[in-house]
């Protein structure tokens, strides 16, 4: 009789990265192999951060930011490809997604801070330096050039999702069949399903309350990304100013509390969740129609009286014991408005 493969066991590890925390859940035969896979995965996240961080002086993005206003900067195919993809989403969304929002974030005090209302001249200067049209990519020579000084590339809009996708790819090449990679709970991608289960169960919480769920979905070979206004914000009077900018107006987005998208991969999910957040449900779903496999769930209105808007959203109620699915965030209770 042939010896059977040992049963797969579930392993989880979290480490700080990209200014937040990454958590990897994976199934492996034993602890030693899991440790090796985790090491490889976190090394890759570190590599991506080393390329894209604008907090690190030696990163490729910092090099481009420092030089591209003076000269066309040649870069490698990977970084160029990510910039091209970002600009493509900017073009298609007419600027609702934009990786040049750094000056705006700074003006509104959200760069290493909790936010403040900018002075008019600060806002004007930041708006002038913001805009994807200020970036010129030369496909032939793989160069990046800024049309003016003050422009900067901000990886915040897409970097975590890219790192998540890279890890999924590496784990797949290493022979892993079941894993979920979670960047700060805002960007997740799933490979396969937990053995014997229909998918990776992920709960979408009520904005600002991670213990109450408004929906739950099963992920399988796709990604889920959430943008929310409640992580960083400030209030003046009864008005809330969140850290997600509408790059087209230079103002924080109003009226949307949270946007969650399910997409084929986490990189596009990062871009599309921002587009969904900035455009809101009406125009957002028109845009998402163009993206195969995309689904979305918005929470809109005032924080005191939120309402949800679902588009192609397949809810999957976490009936206890019915599916046997394991929760990625097991401590909350379902919530409905």
């Amino acid at each position: 009789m042939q010896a059977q493969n040992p049963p797969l066991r579930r392993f989880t590890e979290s480490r700080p990265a990209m200014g937040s925390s990454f958590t990897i859940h994976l199934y492996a035969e034993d602890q030693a192999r899991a440790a090796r896979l985790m090491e490889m995965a976190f090394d890759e996240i570190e590599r991506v951060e080393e390329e894209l961080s604008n907090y690190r002086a030696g990163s490729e993005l910092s090099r481009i930011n420092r030089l591209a206003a003076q000269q066309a900067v040649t870069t490698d195919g990977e970084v160029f490809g990510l910039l091209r993809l970002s600009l493509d989403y900017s073009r298609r969304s007419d600027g609702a997604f934009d990786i040049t929002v750094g000056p705006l974030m700074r003006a509104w005090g959200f760069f290493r801070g909790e936010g403040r209302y900018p002075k008019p001249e600060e806002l004007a200067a930041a708006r002038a330096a913001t805009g994807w049209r200020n970036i010129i990519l030369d496909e032939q020579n793989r160069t990046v050039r800024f049309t003016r000084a003050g422009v900067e590339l901000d990886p915040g809009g897409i970097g975590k999702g890219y790192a998540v996708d890279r890890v999924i790819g590496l784990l797949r090449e290493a022979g892993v069949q079941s894993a979920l990679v979670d960047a700060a709970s805002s960007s997740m991608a799933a490979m396969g399903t937990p053995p014997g289960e229909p998918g990776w169960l992920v709960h979408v919480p009520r904005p600002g309350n991670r213990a109450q769920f408004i929906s739950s979905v099963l992920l399988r070979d796709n990604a889920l990304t959430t943008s929310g206004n409640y992580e960083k914000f400030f209030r003046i009077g009864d008005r809330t100013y969140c850290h997600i900018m509408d790059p087209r107006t230079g103002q924080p987005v109003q009226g949307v509390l949270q946007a969650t998208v399910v997409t084929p991969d986490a990189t596009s999910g990062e871009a599309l969740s921002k587009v969904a957040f900035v455009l809101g449900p009406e125009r957002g779903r028109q845009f998402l129609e163009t993206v195969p496999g995309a689904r979305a769930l918005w929470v809109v209105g005032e924080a005191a009286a939120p309402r949800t808007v679902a588009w192609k959203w397949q809810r999957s109620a976490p009936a206890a014991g019915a599916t046997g699915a394991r929760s990625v965030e097991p401590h909350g209770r379902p919530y409905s408005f």
Partner: protein
Amino acid sequence: MNRRRFMESAAGAAAASALPLAASPGGGVAPSDQLNVAVIGAGSRGREDMRNFMRVPGVKITAICDIYEPRFAEARRITKEETPAFTDYRKMLEQKNIDAVIIATPLYLHAEHVTASLDSGRHVYGEKDMAKTVPECDRIVAAVKKSGKKYQVGLQYHYAPWYIEALNRVKAGKLGQVTHVYSYWHRNNDWRRPVPNKDPKLERLFNWRLYKEYSGGLLAELGSHHLHFAARVLGGMPESVTGVGGITYWKDGRNVPDSVQVVYQYANKATLFFSSITTNHFEGAQIKIYGTGGTITLTHAFGRYNYEPKRAGTGEIEEGRSTQQGLVTGPSYRAERPYEGPAEEFEIPEGNSGSATFLACQSFVDCVRNNTRPQIDEHVGRESGAMVALGNLSMETSQTVKFADHVKPVA
């Protein structure tokens, strides 16, 4: 096929005696000023080199060679095109559109691949360490001379602005007399790479660093980055080396030590201590340069200078104080503690932007284009190679090894 046989046959596809190949005309640089670069060994380091070469204007990756074919797709993901790929490096070197070759294969193949590339008329960026043995390093030095091509060894931290700043400060005497360099590369992991699908046939291909047939172990794969920089600080080749190494924790079939401690001694009795362990990460990777005038700490991300604290007792030396009334004894109340005073962070000069690997690749391309000698050339590579090889020899034989017994002076 057992592991050993797989590795031998896999190596056989890549390693063979260097064939004489026709040199490309014009010294190897394409007239269009585009520099065509090929890579032998498209594993993680080879791909990192590819990325960094692609950041240098006018460089194109024109060929990829690896004996493990799934890496072709990974490499093409970086080039973003259907770059021609080869499993036999000799076939690749027969291609016309190659000016320079990156060698990023396991250490035991470096001499083979570097000399074949040089003999074919190509410039070489050879990953560290230069080669596994001193005679192999000598072969590369001879091949560089014969070919007239450029060779740069991939000790990229020599190009990091904060390393250069450290060296400049030492040369300017800011540290007084440098008497010691202590360097650590400490990790807390098994130094293994996951083998796809746990396929035992791929174990030695993916984890070649753990087997001394292919690898120089921690001293070569990690230590070489520190050793030769320390040698530049202390004045070149040491006189002797004494090392200990062993498997302290990871008893998993590997045959290279998972812990090494090595001391190099110089003619003036200055010492370089290097330690690499795999069971505790506390020290991380850092170099400490100790001089009578202060301490420099170098990591992979920054450089820092600490003033040497004033002598214990503080204040100026007094003359003529009377001890006629006697001195009072008592318990010691102040232990010698680690220095916790202020530090000066090195500033990275504007213009020197990018990672150390990028700056090293850019410098190599400049040398090829301008026909200048790489700073970290075959002679540096040979010194580094000798320091690693003799450090390993000392560990294996439990003897102090004299450099003069193994390394001939450069002719």
